[in-house]
């Protein structure tokens, strides 16, 4: 017996892509149920806890939107590089560097700026610059020395995380933090407009605007066109006159800047203080979000919200059923596998041949 793959002549339609994504999510949810069952918990109660509060109540929905924001920024950040099949796994580090830069600005660089109209843009530029720098390093190493960007971005993630740890445990430990590794609170001028007390803030709006900006970038600019060509075939891109080296660096820098702004927005919009482990791995989840959204910036908004719901829901699981929230990581892994497999079934006709 042999398994044969025949390439389908037509490209999969939008409907079949959507359906296959939906099926992949369902498959992952079924596996999730079995994993929950393995600890002796009721999977149906868990499913209910996962969505009921996060989607069924106003505070839950607001929380989900708040969780969506960093996910959306980082997903958009990795999406640009993914377009040209550049595996930027560094959104986590770029996000953390953005948060670091915003904290630096808010607490140490601009103590005399009391006007939020000046402060907020400054912090945003600072966050973008440091995020971009954290993308530039792996970008230039990949472009000119052929250093594998997966490894370099991952290594830089760890460096960024330890950098934040160093600052918050050491020189930046805030007054009145009772020896906890946490900085002082941002001044009022460095805080993004808040709506109500549930955490709704202007950063969410920025993240959605950013999605449309990225849409414009990849669909309607020469840069986006070049990404597309290089993504299809790097060599063809070179023949078509694309400066691939420049493109690699640009994709990493722009992506890094977007993730960096995400880190800034998380600080100025949600947390107001830098502390270790302030990100539950947003930048890693972003990889899956971008993939599930098939690198479409608008679909990324929807998928990010879905993962925001999952994140909030998993906190509910931990709170009410004592189910460890790392469950979501397992879900992410299974989802990625089923997405990949569904890709195969969409593009190939699979035949079992008896020989």
């Amino acid at each position, binding site marked *: 017996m042999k398994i044969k793959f025949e390439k389908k002549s037509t490209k999969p339609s939008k409907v079949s892509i959507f359906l296959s994504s939906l099926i992949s999510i369902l498959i992952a949810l079924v596996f999730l149920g079995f994993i929950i069952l393995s600890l002796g918990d009721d999977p149906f109660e868990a499913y209910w806890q996962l969505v009921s509060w996060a989607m069924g109540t106003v505070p839950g929905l607001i929380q989900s939107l708040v969780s969506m924001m960093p996910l959306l920024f980082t997903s958009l950040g990795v999406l640009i590089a993914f377009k040209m099949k550049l595996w930027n796994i560094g959104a986590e580090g770029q996000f953390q560097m953005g948060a670091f830069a915003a904290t630096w600005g808010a607490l140490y660089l601009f103590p005399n700026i009391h006007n939020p109209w000046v402060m907020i843009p400054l912090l945003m530029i600072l966050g973008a610059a440091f995020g971009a720098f954290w993308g530039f390093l792996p970008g230039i*190493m990949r472009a000119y*020395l052929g250093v594998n960007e997966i490894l370099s971005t991952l*290594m830089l993630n760890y460096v960024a995380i*330890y950098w934040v740890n160093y600052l918050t*445990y050491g020189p930046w430990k805030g007054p009145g933090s009772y020896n906890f590794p946490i900085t002082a609170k941002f001044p009022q001028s460095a805080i993004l407009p808040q709506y109500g007390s549930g955490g709704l803030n202007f950063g969410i709006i920025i993240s959605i605007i950013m999605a449309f900006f990225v849409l414009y970038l990849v669909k309607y600019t020469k840069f986006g066109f070049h990404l597309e060509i290089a993504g299809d075939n790097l060599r063809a891109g070179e023949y078509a006159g694309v400066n691939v080296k420049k493109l690699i660096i640009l994709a990493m820098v722009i992506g890094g800047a977007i993730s960096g702004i995400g880190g800034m927005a998380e600080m100025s919009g949600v947390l107001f203080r830098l502390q270790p482990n302030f990100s539950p791995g947003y930048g890693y989840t972003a990889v899956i979000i971008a993939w599930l959204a098939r690198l479409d910036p608008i679909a990324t908004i929807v998928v990010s919200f879905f993962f925001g719901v999952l994140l909030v829901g998993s906190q509910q699981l931990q709170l009410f059923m004592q189910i460890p929230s790392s469950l979501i*990581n397992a879900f992410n*892994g299974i989802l990625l596998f089923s997405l990949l497999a569904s890709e*195969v079934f969409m593009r190939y006709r699979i035949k079992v041949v008896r020989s």
Partner: protein
Amino acid sequence: MNDIVISTFAGAIRAGTPLLFATLGEILAERSGVLNLGLEGMMLMGAFTGFSISYITGNLWLAVLAAILVGGLMASLHAFMSITLRINQVVSGLALVFLGQGLSGFWGNAYVGMQANSFQNLKIPLLGDIPYIGPIVFNRDILVYIGYISVPVIWWFLYKTTAGMNLRAVGEAPDAADARGINVILTRYLYTIIGGFFSGLAGAYISLAYTPMWVQNMTAGRGWIAVALVIFAIWDPVIALIGAYAFGGISVLQFSFQILQVPIPVNIMNMFPYIFTVFVMLFASSNRIKKLFGAPSALGVPYSREEKT
């Protein structure tokens, strides 16, 4: 001072051992043409499985065996995805990392703060009495010794046996290997899974010998460092040994620095292995070096008899 020298070098070997196992396994997988980036996930599952089995049964060897099998099981998932379904090996490897992180964190939650049996040092008679070298090299736990032995065994296997030659052929020129009657698909499955065995063992070393406990994400990026080490080692087991222990040395430097009261904060020193990895990649990855020594030509390319890409 002598104590510090000895403890630093001994620490380098201990910290290098999980890197060595994972790197050796990945060398075998990549030599067959399969790129498995999921080492971090397989190691975490190995670490969790080893620790939990040791906790439940108290039997260390059973624990190690279980960890090895779990590593292989995870690798077989990657093998199926990348060899049979021929999907992108990079993304499949990433998925494996998420899966391993998630499952080990989820199931391991119950074991945080527990204590289990762990491997103790086993001094080798005579050799262990050699000044300096004895206490550094020959007064370690048995898994370290297995690490020493694995290197020449794998080297001999790769370069001196028919099976090893076939393995290299499959990674270099699968078409030609196929024409000579070597089963490309089977070979790739086999060595991807064996690679997983090694990662599982690497994980078990961390939770049963290096830091005998279970903590979520306790491999702390070592799986990724091992992926980098494979490139550094230009797919050679002997260079892998040097690289693994060198990296081990860098990651234990902080303990020696603390004793010597070198004024570098711990969190800054924690960055060293990762920064060093980037620097190593800078040199090892340059296309010139790659061309000179050669990665397996068919690395990451799925094989199919009908369809040539």
